[in-house]
Structure formats: structure tokens, C-alpha cells
């Protein structure tokens, strides 16, 4: 059994292994970074640490969210400090058995396929498991 921190982005339901998550915080005021790549939405101040926030919608090639949406921050641990993934809604921490996890469907194509390591069959919906390392590593 493994624990996943889950959240929604657009109409999808994602999960990240809890061990990779430093913390989850509410919407934060953000400073834009001019000239930065489009996935980088801005910088937030987390108790004095400056954290880069990555727009997960953009990273996954999903349509932009509604104007003025208050994104939540899922902070992912990295050796050089945390990186924030901006998501729509935070959901529960779920316990999932290994048997219920399958490889992502072959029909899933494109860049996103690289980022999703598996799909977990929940009772009413699919939980897509995100490879945080690759998600944070923006393509050059």
C-alpha cells in the first residue's frame, strides 16, 4: 500500500507520492518573472525561501484556468529546495494498493505520457500518478 497526495488539474485527478511532497499551501501572492519560460508562473515567498511556481496546466498542455483562479501550491521536495506545482484543488491523501496501479493507457500520447507513470483504478474515477522529477525538469 502506498500513500498519494491527490489534487485536480482541469478535469483530471492526479496523485503524487506523499514522500515527495514537502507541504501543501493555500494560494499565495506571486511575483511574475519576466522573460522566464511560460511554465514558470512566478515566485512565492515561503517563510523566507524564494520558491519557483510551475503552472501544472501549462506543463501538461491543458487549457489555461479561469481568470483570477486561486491556485493551490503543492510543494515538491528537491535537493535544491522546494518547487511549487500550481494545481486547481487539493483532495485527500489516498491509500492505494499496488495491484490497482496500471501503466498509463497506450492511447495516451504526446509529452504528457512522459510525465505520467501510471493510472490507478479507483472506484469512481482514475487517479493519474505524476512523475514529479520529470514534471519539474522543464524541457529545454
Amino acid at each position: 500500500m502506498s500513500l498519494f497526495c491527490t489534487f485536480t488539474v482541469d478535469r483530471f485527478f492526479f496523485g503524487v507520492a506523499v514522500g515527495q511532497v514537502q507541504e501543501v499551501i493555500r494560494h499565495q501572492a506571486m511575483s511574475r518573472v519576466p522573460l522566464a519560460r511560460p511554465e514558470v508562473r512566478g515566485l512565492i515567498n515561503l517563510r523566507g525561501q524564494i520558491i519557483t511556481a510551475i503552472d501544472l496546466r501549462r506543463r501538461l498542455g491543458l487549457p489555461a484556468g479561469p481568470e483570477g483562479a486561486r491556485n493551490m501550491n503543492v510543494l515538491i521536495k528537491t535537493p535544491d529546495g522546494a518547487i511549487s506545482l500550481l494545481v486547481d484543488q487539493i483532495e485527500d491523501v489516498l491509500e492505494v494498493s499496488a495491484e490497482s496501479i496500471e501503466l498509463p493507457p497506450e492511447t495516451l500520447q504526446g509529452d504528457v505520457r512522459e510525465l505520467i507513470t501510471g493510472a490507478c483504478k479507483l472506484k469512481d474515477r482514475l487517479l493519474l500518478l505524476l512523475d514529479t522529477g520529470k514534471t519539474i525538469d522543464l524541457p529545454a
Partner: protein
Amino acid sequence: MNDDSQQQVIQQQLIKDMLMESLEGLDRFDRELVALEKGEAEADTMNDIFRVIHTMKGTAGCIGLQRIEMVAHAGENVLSLLREGKLSIHPELISTLLALSDALREILRVLEQTGHDGGDADYSALLERLRKCQSLPSAPVAQPSIENTAFGLFDDDPGAHSPEVAKPVAAAPSSASSAQVTSVSEASAPGAPSGKPGVSESAIRVDVVQLDKLMNLVGELVLARNQIVEFTSQAENTALVQAAQRLNIITTELQEGVMKTRMQPISNIWSKLPRIVRDVAQELGKEVELVMEGQSTELDRTVIESIKDPLIHIIRNSIDHGIEAPDRRRAAGKAEKGLLHLRAFHEGGQVNIEVIDDGKGIDLAKVKSKALDAGMVTPDQLSRMTDREALNLIFLPGLSTADQVTAVSGRGVGMDVVRTNIEKIGGSVDIQTTLGEGTTLRIKIPLTLAIIPALVITTCGERFAIPQVSLVELVRLEGEQALKGIEHVFGAPVYRLRGKLLPLVCLDAVLHLERSSSQSADNNVANIIVLKAGEQQFGLIVDAVNDTQEIVVKPLGKHLKGLPVFAGATIMGDGMVALILDVFGLAQHAHVVSQSGKNELSESAGTATKAGAAIRQSLLLFSLGASHRFALPLSSVGRLEKFPSSQVEREGDREVVQYREQIMPLVRLANVLGGTDAANGELPVVVYTVNHRNFGLVVGRIDDIVEETVVLQNEQHRSGILGSSVIQGRVTEMIDVGAIISNQALAS
């Protein structure tokens, strides 16, 4: 935890302690050996040298590091003979012992990486060398003389201590004689016994990571303090206000205190120099005496790290290029031993480091001819350069004045890197030289990089911080001025700042910021921030100038490392993040300075043109008639003016206009170069100032201002033309303004 793993932890801790102690000891070992060779050692030096190796051997034996034990043991044998006076100090002996120290360092490095002292390296050659040393001819050991040390290697800043204190401090040449040790010995000076203060009692080792963490926390505390002070400024509750004030004061003191713990005396890097100087001098067959002054001058750790390599490079250069071989020095009537003098001192919130040699100085004529041979400048440019400007040529990449390439230097890479590295941390390099007498190189660097004064500005609702070191002045234009003061030359904005054209950069345009309707720029006000990037100045147009603040510099994450326009980020009083602009990067991004910074060379208006083999520069393009296109460098232009032809008067056979209460001669370029200009209507005039006199060049029609890398083809000997080049797809002739004006000046 079981016994085995506990043992392992203890072993690791022992190795860590030994590494730290041994590396420190070896630095001291090197330094003292070199002193010993010079006969400048103190009475205790010999013992200390012996002790370093002896201790290493003992510790290594204790924790089962046999290889270190073996090598150290061989060294100890030689040292003990030396200590007993059975061996004399001999260059070969010293070199062997230095090789021993290198070998031990190498083993320690392996130990640090792998946790054991195995390694594949074979030290039998070294052991053999050490064994041979034991049978070197014996002679009386040079008597260590105390007098020499009074102003020698270990001379601490003499002014900083009273004479009786200076001795114990100077006598503790361990690199641990840091600020804490010094201050303790000072405090206990009256009536204190003259023995060394025990380092272990007055100082403790602290992991640097721990200090950095503390510094970060203090930075956060400063920000929290700023917020609280902001909130309480409107509060009614006096008790709260008082508490906030106390917090304010304590935080400031804490910040200063923690900053101090990160300060290190410059001797931490200087202590390696005697060895480097010795090695380089020996390699080149030169004799060099190194004098260091102001060793206790303190700098922030990060700054110390970043000047280490440039400093070593400068010193190698001084010995190689500066100081002559002994026979040449004798012929020149100098002492055979060259003097290399290092001085460090605080001045105006900055640290100054001077490297002074009494060598042959820099031969300006040689620098010039080398630069010419390498095609970096044209003869014409050279003839107009001031000595100072010509001297600055040595900072160009690829220029070396050495006749021969040696292992030490002369490849022409280096001084440009030195300058770049020092400028990167907000410092500057200045050079002075007198032919035959020596060279002085002066480095100025900030005390710390962690907390810097900055100007906070706003554009399009975004706040940015600009480091104060790059700031020259602020210009605010209002009303009429705001509309007319900024002129556009085909889209390139310029401002006339005290008669010189200042290229302008709009921050919103450079950063591609979008202006929402509520942030529409106030057209009645223009804020120009005059900044310097290297020696080039430019104006940055921003919406508003907020205030100056001490900001805590924080690095940007890896996703943003590639953006040259930002130097980092900081947190403002309201908790929001603001980006710190990298002025040099911004200037490059906006093409104010070229990538290589080559067009920083010229400063004076007298240096009229800088057309070189391939130098990127801003050019004013104009035409005389339909087919003749010309260019002249914008940097040397004083002003652009228009005069109605009715204002043109005659003085003798020259045309003149009244300009700023002077009679300014006009030169019709059409007459000099061929082509036609508008005889009537308005005359576009480019004004040059040479020796406080104005000259006006009447150009036919101003076409454009461009930035181009000019490669001159068919250099001509036609008067007034440097050569031609293709700019914007048209053949364009490059004007030699200097020649035209000097002809004109001669004629008058």
C-alpha cells in the same frame, strides 16, 4: 543502534576532524617551510613544522590510515634530522618537503571522497626522494632571526595592535588566528603573559553550512521585522510600539553579529601565497620577496572565495611579466630580489587590495603594438588613446605582452577573466604603471554579497531592485521636459545628459511587460535611472522610483538561472518577492554594451572613433546626396543639433554658427568627402567637443542609429575615411572624425 554502526559513526567523525586539522596544518606547513628557506622563520617554526607531520602521523595511526602514517613517517624522519640541525636547509630539501605536503593533501582528498586512504597513487618515488634527503650535505642551520619577522611574512597590520600585543598575534601563524582569536588576545592584553593564547580555548570550529543557515534565518528575521514595524507604525498601543522598536534594534544587532561570524581575514587566502610565489619564482628563475600588509582585513566568506583565483592569477602575472630576472634587475640598478607587496585595507565600505611590484612596469608602446598586431585597434584609434585607455587594453581577451608563452602566463587569457570575475561580484580593477619602476594593481570589492543596498523601482506594477553599486544618478523629467527631453532616433530613445547622449532602455520593453489599463504610464513624468555597466552608461526608464533599502540577496531556482537580466531575488517588507536586476546582463540584453564589453574602451570625447577590426558599436548613419552613405560612432557624439541655414555666418573663409555662447566652426562633410548636402533649409549638425571647443559636422541627412559589428574592408588612405563596411545591406564609409577635426583645428 548496534555497536558496529556506532563505531562507524565515530570513525567517520574522527576522519572528519582529522581532515580539517590536517589540511589546516599542511597550509601552515607550506607557509613555514617557505619562511624557513628564506631564513625568516621564528624560533618555534621548526618545531611547528615537525609537529604538523608528527600529529598527522599519530592521528592516522590511531584511526588505522596506514598509508598516511607511512608517508608522514618518512617525512618525519627527515624533519627530525632537520630539527636537530643534522641537515641544512637546501632548496632540494624544501622542494621535497613541499612535494610531501602535496602528496599528503592528495591522500587526504581521496580519504575525503572515499572514506579510506587507499587510492592507486604510488608514493615510492617520493619516499625515495625523502630518503635521499637524509644524506644531503650537512651545514649549519640558518639561524632563525626574529628581527626579520617584524615586517615580514607574518606581519599583522601593525596599526591594529599595540606593540606588545602584536607579537603574540603574529607569533600564532595558524590560519585559526581569526578575528575571534585576535580580539581575545587584545582584550586580555594588559598584564597578560606573552604566551600564545590557546586557540582551542578562544575559538571553536563551526560548520560553514551552519553559518549560512543562520545567515538565512537572520535574513528572514529582518523581513519579519520590517513587516512588524510596518504594521505597528499605525498602531495605537504604546506597549506594542515599544516592543516593535526593541525588536527592531535587536534584529539589527543580531544581523551585524551574524554577518561578523561569516567574516574571514584575508589571510585565509593569503596564507597560500608564499608557497605560490616561491614556486612560480623558482620556475622562472627569479627572486621575489613577498610582503603582505593588512592580513587581518576581513571580508565575507563568499567574497573571499570569489577573489581567490583572480588574485592568484594577478600575482603569477606580476612575477612573470612584472619582476625581471636577477641579472636584468642588477643591470637596471635594482636589488636582485624583486619586491611583491600586497596590501589590504578597508576604505569607504569597500575592501581595497593592492598588488604592487617593483618590476619593469608595463610597456605601453608594446601593449599598443601588440593590440595593433592582433587587430584589436586601428593605428588611428591608438594615436588618440590616452595612456590610461591604452593600459586598459591589457584587459582585452587575447592580449599578452609576454614575448614568450611560459607555463605560468603569456597566453593572453587571464586579465580579461580576472576583470570579469571581479566585476561579477560588484568590484572593479584599476591599474597604474611606471615603466622601469613597477606596476600597481588595485582591486576594490564590496564587503559582502549577502545584504546589499539597492534602489527599489516599479514598472507596470512589478517591483524590481537595482544594486546601488551600479547606480550613477536619477533623472526625473516632468511636464514639457518629459515629452521633449527623450528623443527618438528611429525608435532608439536617447537623452541628452549634460551634453552627452545617453542611450535609453525602457524596462517594460526589455522585459516584455504588459501594461494593464490601470497602470498606464504617466506621460507627464519620466524617470530615468542612470546606470553603469562596466564603463558604459545608460539610462533605464521606469514608471516610479520607490526608495532605497538594504536587501537580502537570495539565489534564483534552477529554472531561472539562465536569465541574465536577473541577479537574484529578494523579499520586500510586505512579504512579496522582488527580482534583483543584473545591470550588466540587462545592458547586454538590451544591446547597450556588446557581448564582450569591448566598446568600453573609450571614455573621452577626444577619442573620436573606435572603429576596430570587429567591434560592435552604435553608429549614426547619414547620407550625403543619394548614393553616399556614411557612418560615425555614436559614443563620441556630443549632441545632435539642427541649425536653420540662415544662422550660418562666415568668419574668414569658414562657416560658423553661434552655439552656446561660442563660435562653433562648421565642417561641411560634403566638401571634405564628396557628395551633396542641403544647402538651404535646416542643417543637421553633429556636435563634437574636443578640448572644450565645439566643432559641428554638417551631415547631409541623418538616416538611422544602428548597432553593428563593423568589419572594415578596403581600409583607405583617403583623408577622413577609415574604411568601408556593409551596414544594413549598403556600402557605408566609416568617418574618421578625429582626422577631420584635427585637420580643421590645424587650419584654424
